[in-house]
């Protein structure tokens, strides 16, 4: 099947104070229609940058250096701003990280919904009151239709996030939805509701979703397939069960190992040594090698390629030789 989105060798850099830092280094990933794809990584791993590169929404000091960004067969990187504008919102929706700051604080909510819908669908304003009510029912916000003349701060974070999902995923009827850490600022019980909502929308509308998160639990609950990113590299790809049940890359194992519920309470947890910030820009070899417990000479010399492995792909020189149980990796105390 032809993928809906195919990102091929994407490289995005940031310039800061005269220095160039590579945020995404030659990352490739695909999203098929109707599929929920998770991108997992810690802050600075480049997961959000990759999404913004596709949408052409990078800050002025960032630049897509190379790569192809094929959406429905069209390369968004070379297509130009006009095409991008018609794709953003209408073909690819975006659910932001902070619902509160994604709406204007001084404009009534109804007006903002109308404005967005008009942009996405050339909606006839006379009809949109009924449309809006319908939208809100679809995302479980039927109770707030009477409060639409209020301002955003009069809604809770969970309500605003539902509202934004209603506009981005239902109102605009895109084929692909980017959800950039949509639950990080929400309380756990509300976050669980939002995850369920996204999954239901995928089932109802056949929407493909890219879900970017550092929260492994959310990823496990929502996604079909997962990419793991570390320091700008995609280090592992696989369907959600294989990632969580049989992680192949040492970094994925370390991530899973840092979930507290998997360890004896009140005992020290295994800890990944070192930090990602000390990586040199012109590094050779595997980005994870300096922190990796099973790294050997070749890991420091050659960059590993993402190669097929059972149930997915992994970029590790030590696979499958490095196989072992999660807890004998990456411990420094």
């Amino acid at each position, binding site marked *: 099947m032809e993928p809906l989105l195919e990102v091929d060798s994407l490289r995005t850099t940031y310039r800061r104070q005269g220095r160039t830092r590579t945020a995404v280094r030659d990352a490739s990933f695909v999203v098929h229609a109707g599929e929920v794809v998770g991108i997992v990584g*810690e802050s600075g791993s480049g997961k959000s940058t990759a999404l913004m590169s596709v949408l052409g929404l990078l800050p002025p000091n960032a630049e897509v250096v190379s790569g192809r960004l094929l959406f429905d067969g069209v390369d968004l990187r070379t297509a130009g701003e006009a095409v991008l504008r018609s794709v953003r919102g209408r073909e690819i929706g975006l659910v932001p990280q902070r619902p509160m700051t994604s709406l204007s604080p001084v404009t009534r909510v109804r007006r903002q919904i109308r404005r967005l819908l008009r942009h996405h669908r050339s909606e006839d304003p006379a009809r949109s009151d009924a449309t809006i009510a319908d939208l809100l029912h679809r995302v479980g916000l039927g109770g707030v239709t009477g409060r639409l003349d209020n301002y955003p701060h009069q809604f809770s974070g969970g309500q605003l996030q539902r509202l934004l999902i209603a506009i981005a995923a239902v109102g605009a009827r895109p084929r692909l939805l980017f959800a950039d850490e949509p639950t990080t600022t929400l*309380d756990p*019980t509300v976050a669980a509701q939002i995850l369920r909502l996204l999954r239901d929308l995928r089932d109802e509308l056949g929407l493909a979703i890219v879900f970017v998160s550092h929260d492994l639990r959310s990823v496990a609950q929502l996604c079909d397939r997962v990419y793991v990113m570390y320091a700008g590299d995609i280090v592992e790809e696989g369907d959600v069960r294989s990632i969580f049940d049989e992680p192949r890359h040492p970094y994925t194992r370390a991530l899973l190992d840092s979930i507290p519920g998997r360890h004896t309470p*009140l005992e020290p947890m295994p800890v*990944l040594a070192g930090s990602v910030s000390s990586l040199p820009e012109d590094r050779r070899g595997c980005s994870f090698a300096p922190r990796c417990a099973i790294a050997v000479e070749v890991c420091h010399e050659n960059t590993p390629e993402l190669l097929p492995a059972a149930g997915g792909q992994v970029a590790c020189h030590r696979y499958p030789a490095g196989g072992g149980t999660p807890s004998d990796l990456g411990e420094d105390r």
Partner: protein
Amino acid sequence: MSQRLRVEGLSKTFHGRGSWRTGRTAAVHAVDDVSLTIEPGQTLALVGESGCGKSTLVRTIAGIYQASAGHIFVGDTDISQRRALRRHRRAVQLVPQNPLSSLNRSRSIRHALTQPLRVHRIGADTAEQERRAATLLERVGLSADYLPRLPVGMSVGELQRVVVARALAIEPSVLLLDEPTSSVDLTTKARIMNLLLDVQRSFDLTCMIITHEIDIARHLSHRMAVMYLGRIVEYGPTEEVFNRPRHPYTRMLVASASASGPLVNADAAPVPVGEVPRAASQVDGCAFRPRCPHTADVCGSVPLLRPAGTSQAACHRLDEIGADS
């Protein structure tokens, strides 16, 4: 040496944010009649979502807010009264939620760590105090190289360590931690948790940890208290609360964060309902009633904590809804 922390009937009411001239507006009961005991050397995790009053509770215990009612005992000393002595108050120290904000950005780490020593005249002279500051830094896993640095440019994990070191400087017996892992990355989280476990044991501290992440609470605590709209709704040994949650709200929380079993079980988990209420909202009777799947007429009155197994829960319908979910 660690001491028992006992909170009795503690309430904190905020009055409307009007000017002092224009009179008071509606009161908000941020913390409402909370009683807790933490045995010496043990950790209590206080779990709840935003606006439930958990931060207000620790800030009141730490003495930032004056309690509206109730008592706070450290050992046998009541520190809740306005005239409580400074040397008693200092037995309780707080690690605030945002480590960068809790350090003065214009002051060096050296200044931050020696200041409590100067204030309480610990250490004979400046050199001695500086040695102690260096020792403290090393105890929390940072080298003495950090002493001359400013907070700017340090990672959140490093800053968190500095703030913990500062709280330890005056040798408290009770340490309160407000969301200690909320602003750090996943792999850093594990390190901070290890640090807290280590510090608690080696400094023999009585700890209270606030968090909204129930699995972190489970890993770090002996007992757990669940808070909802200013009140404790469930309180008991951590494993008991986690494995046999009694209160409907606790069940909702545990279900939304069940990480112990297989992770990939999206459709099996019950989905919580309703919104997290704002602190200002007033509900007659049980505060959880609007979100509760088990409400009945009896819920119109405020439920009190009552024994359920080895823990306690504040729910009228404990017997009807059974012990296990």
